[in-house]
């Protein structure tokens, strides 16, 4: 219950990696349609979901992100034909590892958002933010090693 | 106006139907086996409920004549499910106090020795609380 109390105030830092062809365009469409989602999300444009190194996500967490989401074209619709298939496996493995390390797995997410799915983009962000808000601030990955 | 709207919302909620999906093709009414026995037809249920014009439907005999054969649901190209709307209108009527369409005291006179249980059970479920 405490978490809920503080989550009203808590403004999470969310990094969204969006592929240029589908999801970034989907985010633009959400903008064109004035579909709002909290300002906590900051988008980083990448050419393809397969450009996202799991390292970037770890880096974001370690630098203080509370949630990281990766958006790409729907499987089968990748601009580069196969990029998101690789991304899907890489991210699955990353999520598995984070979970294994005891990090809340809900802090990471992968969603496929097409250029036409502005509404889905906004809805996805709203949903993701509320999930991260309910988890509260991310501490675990920042101090995976304690120096005592 | 607001109570009319409330009734519309209630019917939509109960039925889970979105009448705005209808493209007014008339296939439901083209397919309905009870068409001639109903003074309001399946496509009219969809458009009238959507407009909030529900009272005439509640007063109608049509809600008791629908055969629940689901042909309109099956054949609707837009997945509107008119049969669910008709049932929802019927339910709003029988859920109102004293509005059971079928009273148990009336049943014996309708009974035919061969009539299967199922006919009575389902009639009660369809026509009364």
């Amino acid at each position, binding site marked *: 219950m405490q978490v809920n109390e503080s989550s009203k105030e808590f403004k999470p*830092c969310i*990094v969204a990696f969006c592929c240029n*062809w589908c999801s*970034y*365009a989907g*985010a*633009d469409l*959400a*903008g*064109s349609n*004035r579909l*709002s*989602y909290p*300002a906590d999300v*900051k*988008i*980083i*444009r*990448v*050419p*393809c979901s*397969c*450009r996202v*190194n*799991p*390292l*970037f996500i770890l*880096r*974001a967490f370690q*630098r*203080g*992100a509370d949630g990281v989401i990766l958006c790409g074209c729907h499987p089968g*619709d990748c*601009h*580069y*034909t*196969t*990029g998101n298939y*690789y991304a899907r496996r*890489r991210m699955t493995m990353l999520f598995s590892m984070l979970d294994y390390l005891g990090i809340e797995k809900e802090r990471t997410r992968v969603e496929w958002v097409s250029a036409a799915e502005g509404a889905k983009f*906004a809805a996805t962000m709203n949903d993701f933010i509320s999930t991260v808000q309910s988890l509260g601030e991310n501490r675990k990955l920042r101090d995976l090693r304690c120096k005592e | 106006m607001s109570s009319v709207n409330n009734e519309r919302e209630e019917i939509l909620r109960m039925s889970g139907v979105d009448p705005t999906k209808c*493209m*007014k*093709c*008339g*296939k*439901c*009414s*083209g*397919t*309905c086996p009870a*068409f*001639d026995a109903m003074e309001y*037809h399946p*496509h*009219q249920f969809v458009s009238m409920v959507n407009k909030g014009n529900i009272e005439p439907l509640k007063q109608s005999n049509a809600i008791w004549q629908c055969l629940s054969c689901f042909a309109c649901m099956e*054949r609707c*190209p*837009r*997945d509107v499910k008119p049969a669910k709307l008709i049932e929802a209108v019927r339910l709003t009527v029988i859920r109102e106090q004293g509005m059971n369409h079928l009273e148990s005291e009336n049943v014996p006179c309708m009974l035919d020795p061969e009539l299967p249980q199922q006919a009575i059970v389902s009639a009660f479920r369809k026509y009364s609380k």
Partner: protein
Amino acid sequence: MHKIGVFVCWCGSNIAATVDVKAVAEAASKEPCVVYATDYQYMCSESGQNLIIDAIKEHNLTGVVICSCSPRMHETTFRKAAQKAGLNPYMVEIANIREQCSWIHKDMAEATAKAIVLARAAIAKVQLNKPLIAGESEVTKRCLVIGGGIAGIQTALDVAEAGFPVDIVEKKPTIGGKMAQLDKTFPTLDCAACILTPRMVEAGAHENITLHTYSEVEEVSGFVGNFTVKIRKKARKVKMDLCTGCGLCTEKCPMKKQPNEFNMGLDKRGAIYIPFAQAVPKVPVIDVEACLKFKTGKCGICSKVCTAGAIDYEQQDEIIEQKYGAIVLATGFDQIKPTKFGELGYSQYPDVVTSLEYERLMNAAGPTKGHLLRPSDGKPPKEIVFVQCVGSRGQSCRDKSYCSKVCCMYTAKHAILTKDHYPDTNIHVFYIDERTPGKNFDEFYRRAVEQYGVDYIKGQVGKVYEENGKLMVQGSDLLANEQITLAADMVVLAAAIEPDKTARSLGTMLTASMDTNDFFTEAHAKLRPVESPTAGVFLSGMCQGPKDIPETVSQAGAAAVKVIGLLTKDKLLGNPCVAHSDEMLCNGCSQCARVCPYGAITYVDKEFRVPGPKRVETRRVAVVNEAVCQGCGACTVTCPSTAMDLKGFSNRQIMSEVDAICK
């Protein structure tokens, strides 16, 4: 040390109403390396661009950050401006503070804070940008058109007329496509064959056009200007160069029980056949599934009667490889078989036909020689019911979600033609909406109603059943608020059209994107309607979406213009944001090549000087073909030593953005 300039756009009030642009510029000016920061009403305007150009010159800027609308909108504009000022265009970064900030947030403080973070990320990134120079590649001056219907023929003719060689690949034994099967064309009612066949002949005879009929595209590699395509020329078992097209073989073939595809299976053809009289090329093909010679080894009649000696039972498929600069998709459409609509009786009753079957029944070269006779008993129908929108505009699993666009008009055409030839026929049309936008289209439909007395009924058919030898059509008449049952002799279903089945695999081969209905998507719905998002691939005709003949021909012409524009160029500038391998770090492990979708990575053994007594060591290192690489970055993540990086989206650039955002 960089000198960064930051330019914050108001976009009129689009940005400035929600984001405090002055505060953004102010905050940006305090970021490291930023030497100049300003705001302006419209950065994309000429004066806005001049402001950027002047600032670059005046402050000797080495990097520029524009806080404005989406880079998908104006990145190119600002890059060009930078270039004008003598700055490498790739030293420009955009912070998207409109679509991803001002337009979605309401609170000014919140939006401003976010805009500052986005600006900070772009500033961090631009400091790691490197000047990039786009590579050049040659253009092969040859065009491939896939599909030999009216769309493909028209594109091919237009490109060929401009002086470029064109190859048409058609999977059927003849070009002509669906239009060849049509009887008359709306709204002028001229005969389809009369206007199409001259075009077919022209294409077949054109010095710049090569026809590959009975052929399919097997494999595509390469990129815009430099595609390499493997085409499988299926064995016709008839030598094209020897055959005179006399047709004797087709007459003598004993296996005359094969359903004739050209006539929608309404009559039969032989195992060796020419699809129709005006086929181009007029060379028969042997259907080896049906041919007695291939099934039993006996027969060989066609070979015996052929005086030219053109029959070649040993003929094998042939693979030809050719290079092209541009590829046009003109794969066309099919009409769905409405077998899933059991209530309409298509599978049960032979007299329930699709509109394409009806075309053949009306056609003088069709199975009934142009006499309208119903399939079941060969009698002329007196009552005909047309049903529109069968399988179109629906949401259920058996429907297509789109409007097939041509059905309203061809149904009116069928009605008029039928009434013209057989005035005593009664025609009823069940319609939902009568859609007739187009020159002289609505007038045409009104003629059907007013002049020919066709009975248009607003409503749909719920059930078709047989009773006493009649097809009983039960449907709704919504205007009369009645359920009616008509006793008909024939029912014609305007079944939905769908993209040709081969389109999906071609789309995969070409990495040309498709929508959920398997129509090819255009690069921009309004401004680039005949280009696929994949560079060098163009769209012509129904494969992009439902359209009628005049629209198809216009689009075919437009696609040709785009092809000509491309082929006129000698060299193409590439995308410089491609992968690059640092050979000092590369292990030569091949992981990157395993994930490259373009085959852009090769390996070479290279000698390196190393410290120690043995002065030279040979290492295997990756080399990226920058003309082939499309810049997806799959390789960069798989590289364990980070030797592979992506220009413009390097590891350090992305991590600097991450750091800036998470600060």
